[in-house]
């Protein structure tokens, strides 16, 4: 927001880790997204026979034991497992792995901020299996330790030994952006030297049922901004970014992907599951992010859209977009990787933050796949079906959530 202090160090992304429906690890995920690979497939983790939709973006073949070194995966729910794995990969990517105490780094100056939509809903499913069978004595004594969503941030910190600020921001589908924003604030205000920030969510019967019940799930594919789009497809995953002050990153010779130039947060205060009809909250979040970054709409080279693929979201998102970008609106390439991953909920904007960082770093942007017919209501330069190469100095990451939470984060290239 105008007036926000921009004092304090510049914050950069120096590590990326991810567990997604198209693979694990920064390199694998980025290449898959650029290639337009889809992670959508028939749901395997539960029986969708009673539903009239059957597709999901599940993470397949994930083995937490390959990544976790400290915490026993059996003591974690799935979202926490994926978050811990992503955190390990991010730290390795940043060249910070195994530093506990070795370089004199104070673990109390290293913290974690994570986001999620529903935490560990499979634990509720297990609780209910006992409840419905009238066997309450079978409820796991660890239910209350496994289920609450703050275990995601806690387990990440336990896994990597970070003893500093620890925050869990369950702001639904915008949570990853909220976590990145909060991490930046902690770094800028000097509360931490290194922050892990990201998001995680687990596929679950509960989440799938909810979206199916709202009629929000597309029967065949996710087609953001397409004229014939029919909805979103639930997914799961986790992504974690390593964030630190620019000078510290330079001093240790870290690879720097991008700077987090600024962010904007707003609330629609309109409806729990429907966005403001004029995209008012989304507009304010974008404007605040630009203002804090000292940028104008014309400076943006790429936008990673929220783009869930529902008829309503994409239309309203476009309205907000036009209000901010004006006559620039058709100039800025826009893509939605939800076309490939489905909607990974709390992980979505964290994965998209990674994408924006890499877009800035490499000058490549992933496509929106399944794009066949433009929609006049979504009058945007959609990066259709194939990745593009072009210099990206500034990328904007937009995310909008149930409950009307909106968040925009801007990534910018860092001079050598």
């Amino acid at each position: 927001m105008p007036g926000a202090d921009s004092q304090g160090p510049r914050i950069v992304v120096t590590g990326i880790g991810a567990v997604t429906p198209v693979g694990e690890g920064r390199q694998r995920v980025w290449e898959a997204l650029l290639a337009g690979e889809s992670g959508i497939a028939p749901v395997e983790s539960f029986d969708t026979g009673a539903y009239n939709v059957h597709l999901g973006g599940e993470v397949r073949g994930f083995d937490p034991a390959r990544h976790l070194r400290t915490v026993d995966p059996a003591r974690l729910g799935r979202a926490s497992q994926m978050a811990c794995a992503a955190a390990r990969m991010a730290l390795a990517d940043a060249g910070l792995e195994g530093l506990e105490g070795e370089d004199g780094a104070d673990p109390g100056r290293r913290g974690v901020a994570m986001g999620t939509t529903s935490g560990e809903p499979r634990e509720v499913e297990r609780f209910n299996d006992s409840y419905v069978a009238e066997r309450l004595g079978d409820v796991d004594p660890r239910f209350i330790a496994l289920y609450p969503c703050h275990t995601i941030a806690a387990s990440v910190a336990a896994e990597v030994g970070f003893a500093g600020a620890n925050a869990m921001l369950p702001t639904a589908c915008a949570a990853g952006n909220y976590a990145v924003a909060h991490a930046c604030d902690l770094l800028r205000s000097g509360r931490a030297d290194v922050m892990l920030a990201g998001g995680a969510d687990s596929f679950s019967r509960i989440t799938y049922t909810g979206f199916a019940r709202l009629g929000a799930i597309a029967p065949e594919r996710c087609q953001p901004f397409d004229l014939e789009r029919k909805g979103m497809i639930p997914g799961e995953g986790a992504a974690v970014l390593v964030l630190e002050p620019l000078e510290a990153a330079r001093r240790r010779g870290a690879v720097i992907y991008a700077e987090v130039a600024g962010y904007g947060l707003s609330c629609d205060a309109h409806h729990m599951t429907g966005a403001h009809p004029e995209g008012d909250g989304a507009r304010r979040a974008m404007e605040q992010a630009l203002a804090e970054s000292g940028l104008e709409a014309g400076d943006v080279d790429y936008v990673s859209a929220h783009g869930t693929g529902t008829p309503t979201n994409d239309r309203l998102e476009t309205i907000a977009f036009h209000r901010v970008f004006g006559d620039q609106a058709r100039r800025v390439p826009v893509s939605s990787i939800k076309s490939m991953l489905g909607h990974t909920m709390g992980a979505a904007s964290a994965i998209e933050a990674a994408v924006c960082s890499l877009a800035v770093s490499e000058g490549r942007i992933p496509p929106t796949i399944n794009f066949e017919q433009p929609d006049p209501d979504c009058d945007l330069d959609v990066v259709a079906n194939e990745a593009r190469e072009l210099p990206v100095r500034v990328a904007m990451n937009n995310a909008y959530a149930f409950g009307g939470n909106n968040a925009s984060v801007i990534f910018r290239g860092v001079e050598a």
Partner: protein
Amino acid sequence: MDVAEMKASIKEIITNITNLDPEEIGDADSFTQDLDLDSLSLLEIGVDVDYEFKLGLPEEEMRGIDSVNETVALVTKTLNEKNATAEVA
């Protein structure tokens, strides 16, 4: 179940979802225009009416129902069709 009981049952469902008193719900009142119900409330009413009367209706048939009278008509029609099918079977 006669029509009066059906209406009362439907109004109770609406009350549970909207906090409106049954007396405030006119039989012909438009859900969207007169009672000012949003899409989420309408969806929930449809789900609960279907659940209550065991209609097993596809989504599309519940959409567009906009008053107690229309709901009664749909419920009656569906139950009659089910009974007719049962008799034939």
